[in-house]
């Protein structure tokens, strides 16, 4: 019979993460206090800004879609011992290809959408495979090639937008993807006269959540991807191989697993998922086009945070993605209601991740103590 002690309970990863979140908010509260704001009011505003209307929560869900996916993207590479800091560039690749295929090719609805996301995933996947190839063949560290490719893709996207066939005249943006490629929920209602009247007639907050947001099917696809990746690692030989390479490449090699091939595969899958995130933004969210960027939008870096708060698991990334999105979306309410800078949430998230980084030591200390206790019990 084993009795679960408080110590065992503390060692569970989920408990550690929840503790980190609690401490993160506590640090945020202290910072707010020092700056002369009432933390209770600020967190109240955050809560209301997310939950007081279905529309707000719909926005949170919409904004969580790309970062859940870039989070899963990070998880996939991380399982194979790779640090994919290039989701940013892979996201841009996906968005760019989605905007091109979505605007230049004419196909029936649904089919068009599928072609768009597949094209985007293949393109981004190739970018990831290149990173994996450079690493396995030429020992170019993936962090460096990813940082470089993030910028190359940003400039490539900016360049493509200047081309006459792709640029929308008079704007700093590309032409829009055709409606047949969209993944907007109830798009027919929103675009037809009768549908609009029907929706406008009802004053239900749920109708508002549908009508006044870009609610789209992306979140469902993100959940499906998360489950798919979970099953890949849990139930397939390929998934086992990819993980083995991350845990111990030498042992994996001795066991007959091709480490080089696994690195390329892992990076390709990881990047394809980041590309999917970009594509779903184009198909799901107004204005369905890519614009000139002067700096990165941060979806890739947000994905790293999401993956780490999600405990390095694809399913966990769904929850942490929604959590992250709540904090960033709700931070606007903190600012409008209390005047405190919404960036307090960046500090809170940073502290949470910092604590997650040092949590390994806490677990180690707990293990050492319980080992000592176990020895004492045996000898005694």
């Amino acid at each position, binding site marked *: 019979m084993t009795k679960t002690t408080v110590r065992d309970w503390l060692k569970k990863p989920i408990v550690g993460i929840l503790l980190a979140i609690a401490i993160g908010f506590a640090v945020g509260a202290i910072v707010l206090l020092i700056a002369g704001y009432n933390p209770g009011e600020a967190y109240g505003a955050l809560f209301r800004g997310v939950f007081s209307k279905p529309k707000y929560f719909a926005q949170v869900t919409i904004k969580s879609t790309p970062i859940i996916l870039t989070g899963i993207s990070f998880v996939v590479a991380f399982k194979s011992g790779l640090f994919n800091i290039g989701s940013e560039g892979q996201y841009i690749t996906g968005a760019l290809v989605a905007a091109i295929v979505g605007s230049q090719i004419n196909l029936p609805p649904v089919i068009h959408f599928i072609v768009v996301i597949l094209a985007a995933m293949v393109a981004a996947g190739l970018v990831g495979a290149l990173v994996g190839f450079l690493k396995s063949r030429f020992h170019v560290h993936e962090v460096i090639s990813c940082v470089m490719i993030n910028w190359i893709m940003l400039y490539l996207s900016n360049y493509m937008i200047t081309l006459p066939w792709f640029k929308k005249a008079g704007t700093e943006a590309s032409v829009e993807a055709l409606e047949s490629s969209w993944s907007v929920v109830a798009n027919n209602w929103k675009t037809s006269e009768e549908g609009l009247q029907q929706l406008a007639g009802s004053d239900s907050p749920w109708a508002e959540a549908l009508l006044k947001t870009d609610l789209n099917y992306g979140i469902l696809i993100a959940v499906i991807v998360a489950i798919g990746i979970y099953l890949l690692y849990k139930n397939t030989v390929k998934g086992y191989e990819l993980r083995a390479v991350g845990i111990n490449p030498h042992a994996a090699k001795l066991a007959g697993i091709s480490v080089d091939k696994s690195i390329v595969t892992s990076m390709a899958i990881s990047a394809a998922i980041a590309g999917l995130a970009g594509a779903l933004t184009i198909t799901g969210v107004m204005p369905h086009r890519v614009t000139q960027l002067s700096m990165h939008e941060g979806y890739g870096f947000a994905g790293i945070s999401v993956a780490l708060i999600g405990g390095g698991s694809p399913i966990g990334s769904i929850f942490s993605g929604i959590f992250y999105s709540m904090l960033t979306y709700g931070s606007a309410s903190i600012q409008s209601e209390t005047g405190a800078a919404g960036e307090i949430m960046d500090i809170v998230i940073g502290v949470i991740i910092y604590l*997650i980084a040092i949590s390994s030591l806490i677990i*180690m200390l707990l293990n050492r103590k319980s080992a000592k206790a176990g020895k004492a019990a045996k000898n005694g």
Partner: protein
Amino acid sequence: MDNIGIVFSITLMYATPLIFAALGGIISERSGVTNIGIEGMMTIGAFAGAAVGYFTANPWIGFACAAAAGGALSALHAIACVKFHANQIISGVALNLIGLGVSLFLSRLLFDGVTQTLPVPNKLPKLVENGPGGLNLDSTVLVVLIFIIGVWFFLYKSRGGLRLIAVGEHPAAADTLGVNVFRVRFLAVIVSGLFAGMGGAARTLAVVSSFSPIVISGHGYIALAAVIFGRWNPVGASLACLLFGFAQSLVVVLGGGDIAIPSQILAMLPYILTIVVLVLLRGKTNAPKASGIPYIKGQR
């Protein structure tokens, strides 16, 4: 002919902040601690420099405070990586968020709710202003030159530097010879923060005159790339930073002219070139062997 002065000026203007940060990266990595938090340390340095420079009207005090702010943030990294054996990359990611968050939070607090600080009344002085061919040189160029020589001399010609390198290559061996691995690494990470902070301020007190969220956007990561590109050597890394700066100056100079290369394609060049050079080196990069690995006493 007119353009040579401009190309030279823009190259140095863009490269100088990167070189500060890269020197910091070298010190930290050579001691065996990966520091991708340099981006956040540059950001907080950029903010501290601009804010203190605004309130005191003295850019040099701002510059010193920027170094202190970077050093303070890097102390968190040092505690996590050296004391708590944390995953160094995760800690770095956290610091980038905290550095940006704190900078923007304080900016809104001190500057009427906006994330852009007011311009500093006095920028750092210029060494050369409107010289021949449009030559402009900031005093930070001279400062960084002194630091490049200083770091080179420290690493290769001083006892402390050799200890630092030993700790980064084989901490257990250094430990048995009586070198305090933890102290060396702790100090190295703090120094890397000081440098990164100065790098940030070199942008907000010399290149532009105020802080905004885009003033540091990816510069820290590029500085880290320069560290690897320059093979962990202060001179090599500085040359790599100059290459990035040179490409940037070409974008400015050729972008305005009638040469048929789109500026976006030019802007890609340094990044493509970095990858190509790394491919040619085939990983023969002399990376410090213990870089990124926490040192735990008694473990081999």
